[in-house]
């Protein structure tokens, strides 16, 4: 394997990592910061993508789709918050799991009912549809660069929002003791609602950004949800920084694993055996990684301070 190949694969890994971070960001916010397990995060990601597809058919531009998708995701998030989530903040984690599981079932089916089962697509914006040659015979779409930039911006904004602003402090405080925050003169419910809406919008945002390179189909968020959980758990729940770094690590491990596991296995065993062992290992790799990380650091790489 040549050095170029390794370099390109590393880039691929980092880029997958950023994509994972985009998806995990809203989840960390709501889970880590508000201590709320929102399994519906995955379907909210899906909704973002679907709304964008509709937005595209209405406006005919990617940017219109983006706006429509994000606003739509926000509105749906706020409605859900009002109807369901706000009654669950001070409940057991398992109650939250059960209720949000119900929401997954509902929204997956609702999307299928509204948009049909056939996968859909969202075209890339013209502005970002160029590409350049990464290595001989392989182009790298500008869109993916934009994706990386978006991921970095989201990471920075979130980090500052949570750790440096008063709203961030209040939300963190509210996660551990909401009645007390309220008794000190802050309308914590409204704050939670806003944060939740913001989290939903982030999920939707990720869905929209992913739509031009990934499939838009019912249930598209289900497996991603698990990946996002893997990311935030490795990173340490409640830590934006942790989620970011963990996302990169997961992206790298996964990509490099797929890139090289079989080749490495071939050094150790017969090609046909390697062909069955290599991919199996590659699929398990991130789970192995997670188990290993948690074995040595039971609260993730960057346990949230004090949490």
């Amino acid at each position, binding site marked *: 394997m040549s050095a170029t190949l390794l370099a390109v694969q590393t880039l691929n890994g980092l880029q997958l990592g950023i994509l994972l971070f985009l998806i995990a960001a809203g989840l960390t916010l709501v889970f880590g910061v508000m201590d709320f397990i929102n399994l519906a995060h995955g379907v909210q990601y899906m909704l973002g993508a679907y709304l964008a597809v509709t937005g595209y058919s209405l406006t005919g531009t990617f940017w219109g789709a983006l706006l429509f998708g994000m606003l739509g995701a926000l509105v749906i998030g706020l409605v859900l918050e009002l109807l369901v989530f706000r009654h669950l903040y001070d409940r057991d984690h398992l109650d939250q799991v*059960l209720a949000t*599981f*119900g929401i997954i079932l509902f929204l997956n089916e609702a999307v299928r009912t509204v948009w049909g089962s056939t996968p859909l697509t969202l075209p890339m914006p013209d502005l970002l549809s160029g590409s350049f040659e990464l290595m001989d015979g392989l182009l790298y779409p500008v869109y993916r660069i934009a994706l990386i930039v978006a991921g970095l911006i989201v990471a920075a904004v979130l980090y500052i929002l949570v750790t440096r602003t008063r709203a961030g402090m209040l939300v963190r405080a509210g*996660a551990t003791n909401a009645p007390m925050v309220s008794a000190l003169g802050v309308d914590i419910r409204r704050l939670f609602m806003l944060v939740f809406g913001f989290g939903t919008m982030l999920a939707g945002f990720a869905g929209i950004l992913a739509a031009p390179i990934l499939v838009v189909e019912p249930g598209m968020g289900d497996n991603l949800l698990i990946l996002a959980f893997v990311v935030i758990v490795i990173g340490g729940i409640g830590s934006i920084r942790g989620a970011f770094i963990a996302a990169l690590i997961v992206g790298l491990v996964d990509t490099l694993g797929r890139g090289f596991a079989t080749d490495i296995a071939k050094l150790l065993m017969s090609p046909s055996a390697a062909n069955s062992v290599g991919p199996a290992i590659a699929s398990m790799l991130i789970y*192995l990684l997670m*188990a290993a990380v*948690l074995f040595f650091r039971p609260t993730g790489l960057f346990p949230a301070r004090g949490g």
Partner: protein
Amino acid sequence: MTASPLSTTESATSAVPAAPRRSRETVIAAVAFLLFALLPPVAMVMEDTFFVFFAIRVMIFAIAAVSLSLILGFGALVSFGHAAYLGLGAYSVGILAEHGYWDVTISLPVTLLVCGLFAAITGAISLKTRGVYFIMITLAFGQMAYYTATSLSAYGGDDGLTIWGRTEIFGASVLGDRTTFYYVVLGMLMLSYVIARVIVASRFGRVLQGAKQSEMRLRAVGIDPYWYRLVAYVIAGMMAGVAGALLANATNFVSPAYMSWHRSGELIVMVVLGGLGSLAGSIVGAASFLILEEVLALFTEHWRLIFGPLLVLVVLFGKGGLTAMLGGGRKNG
């Protein structure tokens, strides 16, 4: 993670069944078993053999749910990889059958051994973590089991493995008869329930429940919760393994799909739906989950549009799960 004070008060009232709850528990279980026991004759009269088959499935998942309830409801160990044991149990039977070993005297010990061993190893690692980290690390092990099964080409891989017969008991294939098999499954369910019940009420059970509330307190009186949790985890794993072995017999088929994370999630939902800290509740939870799925699907292809909100309603208004609703008042009233 720091729980909010509110959730602390909640756990304050959710863990230990007080005396009146205990008797309600018994009543619910007794009614459930009675209904199960009466079902085959009734089905016979109604000439609907499908009921019997469906009830077998319900009971098998009830066993798995009871086993999960033991560690989840009483030890706060939310295993998100519990379906792995269903799968391991099923594959133990399937693979042995593939090699010509049909007898329960072989398959049962092997199932218990395989599941116990897997639980001991993964549990030893997982139990170093807590809370959501535990949820995720058990998921990780579940996924490893899943991916291993999908790559087992020799045993059908993802396509699964058909078992061309049923487990024999001392060489006799009595399980081939559906009614006999039915009562064997019912017997196993009752046995699982009683075992879990006895364990919960024992010294061991008290330690398990104490550890759920404050680990620090237990250490301070000289108890290391780790080993108790591990043993509970292993017991639960073996129990779920038995459910898996039964499932393999009921379906004559083994598939990696038995251990997908969706299935693990469904098991958690069954337990929570039935009510945490209630073993009989888990039976009710498993039954209502499967029955609802089945019945709603009869009405519309889009049954999830109803089922999903129904779950949400149970959480919002039936605080404490279905058994709490059945019993009338909320358990923290």
